[in-house]
């Protein structure tokens, strides 16, 4: 209630004028009348959505394959890197930690941070999840962990090299990863680092955009929903496609079950 008091409508007259213009004039009305559908909008929450054609029917069994195909097309890389032309596959939960560790070790040995420990950003709220997967211990020898707390913390490191995040769920239809974010600092983890490493549980794969929207409605409080499909890209200079416009240059996904 209090919010209504805090945010009064200073330009009420303007709103009334705009709305009055928009009221359906006689003869102009076409399609469904809101009088009948408005109650439906509100009650539909949590109920079954109206049937909508999706781009493709995806059986649960093929969800992971479809996601991998889509995401690969969007220039996502999967870990562990598949050999040759083999398609990446879902790995066991127990080997997640080793996979990340192997990857970071190779970066470390390549001298990505001039031979010193790689600074890695993680989400403070996800520390527990990452510990459960035994990741933090395994990567310790090569890395220096930092937690993203406040947005102002980034001022010191404008170009953080790595971040590790666990996706809330993913959409097979579009090959997208979905994050429900509580704070701005959490959200920045998906955008500021050059390499964004994302963990995804196979059971969190959803078939369509509608399912993703519906799933987000059942979740806890959050500030924003971020849907990430591939590394940041631009084609603004002569239509040449380049990765890493403002966001990550590489998006690495680990799909486990």
């Amino acid at each position: 209630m209090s919010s209504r008091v805090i945010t009064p409508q200073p330009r009420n007259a303007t709103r009334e004028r705009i709305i009055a213009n928009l009221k359906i004039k006689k003869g102009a009305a076409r399609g469904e009348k809101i009088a009948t559908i408005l109650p439906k909008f509100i009650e539909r929450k949590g109920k079954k959505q109206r049937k909508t054609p999706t781009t493709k029917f995806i059986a649960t069994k093929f969800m992971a394959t479809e996601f991998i195909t889509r995401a690969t097309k969007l220039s996502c890389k999967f870990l562990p890197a598949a050999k040759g032309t083999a398609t990446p596959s879902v790995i066991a939960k127990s080997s997640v930690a080793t996979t990340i560790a192997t990857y970071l070790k190779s970066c470390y040995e390549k001298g990505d941070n001039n031979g010193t420990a790689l600074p890695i950003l993680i989400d403070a709220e996800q520390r527990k999840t990452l510990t459960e997967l035994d990741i933090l211990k395994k990567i310790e020898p090569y890395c220096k962990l930092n937690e993203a707390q406040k947005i102002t913390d980034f001022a010191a490191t404008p170009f953080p090299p790595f971040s590790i995040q666990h996706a809330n769920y993913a959409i097979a239809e579009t090959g997208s990863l979905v994050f429900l974010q509580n704070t701005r600092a959490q959200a920045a983890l998906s955008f500021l680092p050059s390499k964004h490493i994302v963990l995804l549980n196979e059971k969190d794969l959803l078939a369509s955009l509608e399912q993703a929207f519906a799933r987000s409605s059942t979740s806890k409080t959050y500030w924003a929903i971020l849907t990430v499909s591939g590394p940041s890209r631009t084609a603004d200079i002569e239509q040449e496609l380049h990765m890493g416009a403002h966001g990550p240059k590489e998006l690495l996904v680990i799909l486990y079950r």
Partner: protein
Amino acid sequence: MPLLSLSFFSSSQGFRQKSVAALANPTLRAALDKAGTGFLNARKKAFDEIENSSSIKARAQQARTRAIDNMAELLLLFERNAQAKGIHVHWAETAEQACAIIIDLCRGKKRIIKGKSMVSEEINLNEALLKNGAEVTETDLGEYIIQLANETPSHIIAPAVHKTRAQIDALFRYHHENIEEAKVADNNPKAQRTSVLLVEEARQKIRDKFLQAEVGITGANMLIATRGAGLLLTNEGNGDLSAIMPQRHIMLAGIEKIIADDGDAAAVLRVLGRSASGQSLGNYMSLYGAQPLQDNGKDLHKDLHKDLHFVLLDNGRSKMHSSAWREMLRCIRCGACLNHCPVYTSVGGHAYGWVYSGPMGKVLTPLLAETSKQTSAQELPHASSFCGRCVEVCPVGIPLTSLMRKLRERDFEKPLQPRGLKTRLACAVMRLLFAHPRLYRFVIACFLRVLKLLARGRGHISYLPTITAWTDTRDLPINRSARSAIASIRTSYPR
């Protein structure tokens, strides 16, 4: 003087003069040729690879139609839901009002970053903010380039499509201090840099701005009424960084961006990315103020959304709603009609004189600019061959050509300039001919005989005195015998 008209139709030239100049500009032609078929192929591939593209487009159109038919109620629902979460909703009737609201929100804050927003170009926001002493940085690479060049966007999706790499390189060299020489291609400071280097340089320069920004202004691709949230679709991630990094986030959107619910939003998203650039979604799709409304208003973390502001702009849209051009409000600004337009791809976006170009601009500009009584906008709907490609590709089925025709009709009925003698005479003759079929047949038959005579032996005419504008660039084929042409007139206009 309304702010709108300052940059709007700043030059006295109309579409005709500007397009002639554009056609004679070799650099522009090179840039447009480069852009060429890329967009078209990407879009085609994206729609070909899905199984049921026609029903997907039909569903998107239905979603947009529902939104427009119920706009008033949905906007109020949107406002109520947003306010329940502590989000601020501001209404602006005109461009000046919208600028005033945003200037007010930026009071005492200097560093402002912007994600790409065509509405902000529409209201000329940058100029208004700069006048108030703020420092504004565009963060979309295309917008950044044209900001440095002090130009306006020439395409709603790719604002700098008219610039070549050489021009961009020169711009960056001029505006960026201490470019690291090592980063210059082949260590040769004079060599033109590759686009990778240019993208990297812009990334470095703009990152600083992100970190210091106090206010972020972005557009919104949709406003979801049942959620009271704004949806933003970007490829570079600049829109999201503009939203996340500063304390205050302002989302500026036209009122027609409203959409009923999640399902409708998903339906539109399916066609939006595909039509725009052939992507299945677009790299980053974010919902701000997304938190669902819990029952009875419990569990609401109002603090989360305290500094999110929606500015809803009317600027002529509500008037369109009850006019014959209401269908135009369905537009989702995908840019497909621009990419497929033979006029746009030849003359580029600047010839249209305003932010909205191509076929959609030919309808929108005269309608939105109506209040400013500018005649050069009224010229736009006449600059079309009505080939109809835009209608074919529009994902939400907007009949652009018939909307343009209606604009032409309106112009004829209420001309902003007095009709010339030539026009009046031509109309009188046409009326006479159309009302008398016999006379019509006779005149046309004579006309065809004359043409046949002129084309003798060649099968085409390459010069005709009164219509040189046409014959200068094309030949008129006359290969049927006049007799058969006359016969076909007989059958199509029976006595």
